[in-house]
């Protein structure tokens, strides 16, 4: 029973939101490679969704393009989620390892990513009045991902329903703290760099004079 390849496991978990992760855990399956590929596809999907969406349905400020927000919204957010969840759940008797949390959560993102690509393609066939279909697909993809993500956390740590909800709430708090610390650290580093640079220029002037 359940002798599936890694690709088949992805399909199994996505299409069995409530049992899939338990099976995945039981069979000790899941690939980190696929997980990274999914995050890369998420990064591409965010850009595609923002840039290639039909003009009459979505028009972003296009005088400049900055890739950093897309990196933050995909890689950084996901990393913060995984690390935040791991650090919270190790304290709350969670069973999941960092690797497992990464794999399980990234599988949960698949409906969202598919939704991003699907709405982008579909937007080129629909007019404004039919945009309600796109909204519909958007919410279906989002809801599916939420359910998957909840069950991923639930089964990776072997929690009860309420404990999972609490863990997710605490994870979001932990993410905020991580983000805050990153910003703080970056501004500190910036100050240090400016300080070193000003010393450097000062010495340079002295040498010249």
């Amino acid at each position, binding site marked *: 029973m359940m002798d599936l390849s890694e690709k088949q496991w992805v399909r199994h978990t996505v299409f069995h939101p409530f049992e899939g992760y338990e099976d995945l855990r039981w069979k000790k399956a899941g690939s980190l490679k696929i997980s990274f590929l999914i995050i890369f596809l998420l990064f591409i999907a965010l850009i595609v969704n923002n840039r290639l969406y*039909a*003009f*009459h*349905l979505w*028009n972003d*400020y296009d*005088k400049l393009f900055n890739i950093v927000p897309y990196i933050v919204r995909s890689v950084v957010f996901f990393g913060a989620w995984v690390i935040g969840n791991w650090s919270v759940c190790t304290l709350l008797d969670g069973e999941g390892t960092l690797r497992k949390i990464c794999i399980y959560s990234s599988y949960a993102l698949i409906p969202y990513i598919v939704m991003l690509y699907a709405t982008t393609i579909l937007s080129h*066939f629909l*007019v*404004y009045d039919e945009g309600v279909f796109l909204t519909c697909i958007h919410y279906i993809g989002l809801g599916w991902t939420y359910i998957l993500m909840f069950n991923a956390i639930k089964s990776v740590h072997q929690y009860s329903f309420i404990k999972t909800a609490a863990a997710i709430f605490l994870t979001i708090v932990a993410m905020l703290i991580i983000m805050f610390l990153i910003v703080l650290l970056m501004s500190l580093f910036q100050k240090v760099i400016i300080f070193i640079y000003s010393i450097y220029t000062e010495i340079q002037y002295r040498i010249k004079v």
Partner: protein
Amino acid sequence: MIFVQGWIKKILTGLLSGVIISASSWGLVYADEAYDVYNYDRWGEAIPSQAGYLARFSVSGSELGTDDFSSPGDIFIDHNGLFYIADSGNNRIVITDNGLKEVKNVIDNFTYKGKTLTLKNPQGIFVSDDDEIYIADTDNSRVIRSDKNGNADLVIEKPVSELYPENLTFLPQKVIADKAGYVYVVVNNITSGSVMYNKDGEFVGFYGANRVEKTSKVLWKYFWKLISADNMKKYMKDSVPAPITNFDIDNDGFIYTCSNSLTQELDAIKKVNAAGYNLFADIEVHFGDAPTADYSNNPDNSYVDIDINKDGLISCLDYSTDRIFQYDEDCNLLFIVGSSGNQLGTFRQVSAVESDDTCIYVADSQKNTITVFEETVFGSIVHQATKLYNDGYYEEALDPWFEVLKRDGNYRRAYIGIASAMINNGNYDEAMKYAKLADSQWQYNRAFEGWRTEFINNYFGIISLVLIIIATMVLVIVRHIKKAKGGHRK
């Protein structure tokens, strides 16, 4: 081969235009005006633009053959094209010919019921189509109606009514009259609109008040009022709207008002219908300079005068930047004219604006002159195209719009106009192209809808055939895979 050539052509034109653009950067462009002419793009960012109006000349009182003006407060052009200038500092009304070349008449006193009335700091002037002159005689607290020879037949004073607060002074600033003879007076300490009188000078009520902007401060006040006791409420001030500063009336009898409030942006410019409702309230428009330059919520523009010409073009005079913002009847920004300064075409302290078919006239109460801006060729083409477009003649407007683009490729309205015409023609491919250039999603949506319908009508047979083939192929493959899998499982 054709494709390759097309590509080469595109690259070459791109390179060439790049060279031209870099060569004609700001310093080298020949500009006639004493200020940078600009307009706004779709994102609310200021971009250089062609001038729609050029300052031709400015006249002082002595150039017209009379004493110099002293802080002129208002100008008015009557139906014969004569100019009426309220020369506030000299307590007189100056009437000149229609080219602003020489003085025809100067009125400084009126006979009313055998008495002689003199003016004191008259701030407003209006002339009706049956040649009755209305003067807001500000410091004498009255409005005078007279004929051209100075025979006054009506003097309006502070209304005696329980609606009108008794303790307030009555200093009429501006005056207009509608076709029925009703007189409207702007008094700057009244926030409930202009004061309205009937033909016989009897007080009727107030007309055209602004709304109160729902800022957080106002809402906070409202909240406190809800929970405070009655004797506390007595000491609380009501939230009041900004008073109107000036107004004008168009051919159809609609009154346009402006407000010089720097704190309230709501109803700064409005078109009032007979019921007192602001017809511009539902149009998504931001009058004056775009807020992108300044991230505070306080509007920077403060309008002291507004004028509507025969074609329905709205000219708003901004006191804080000394600019005239010209809009068409649907509130699309056409041109921005003027600036602060001492040269021709710039102002020190603007006080009044008036416009006719081809010119804009601006009074400066510090320079004591009237500056005449004349429409450029570009301006006249834009006006022609706008008029045709707004009247629904999209295809007739096509040629002028292309002409506009030849002179200013950044003029967004031209792209919208062309896209509309193309949609009407059924030329959806081109329409989509121009709608995209105009950055107009709404036009693009219309063009795309048309294009899609046409596409489906033309290729319905092929599309359905392809779909059926794909569907059957998918079915066959799926069944095949299932069979293969089932065999393994067993």
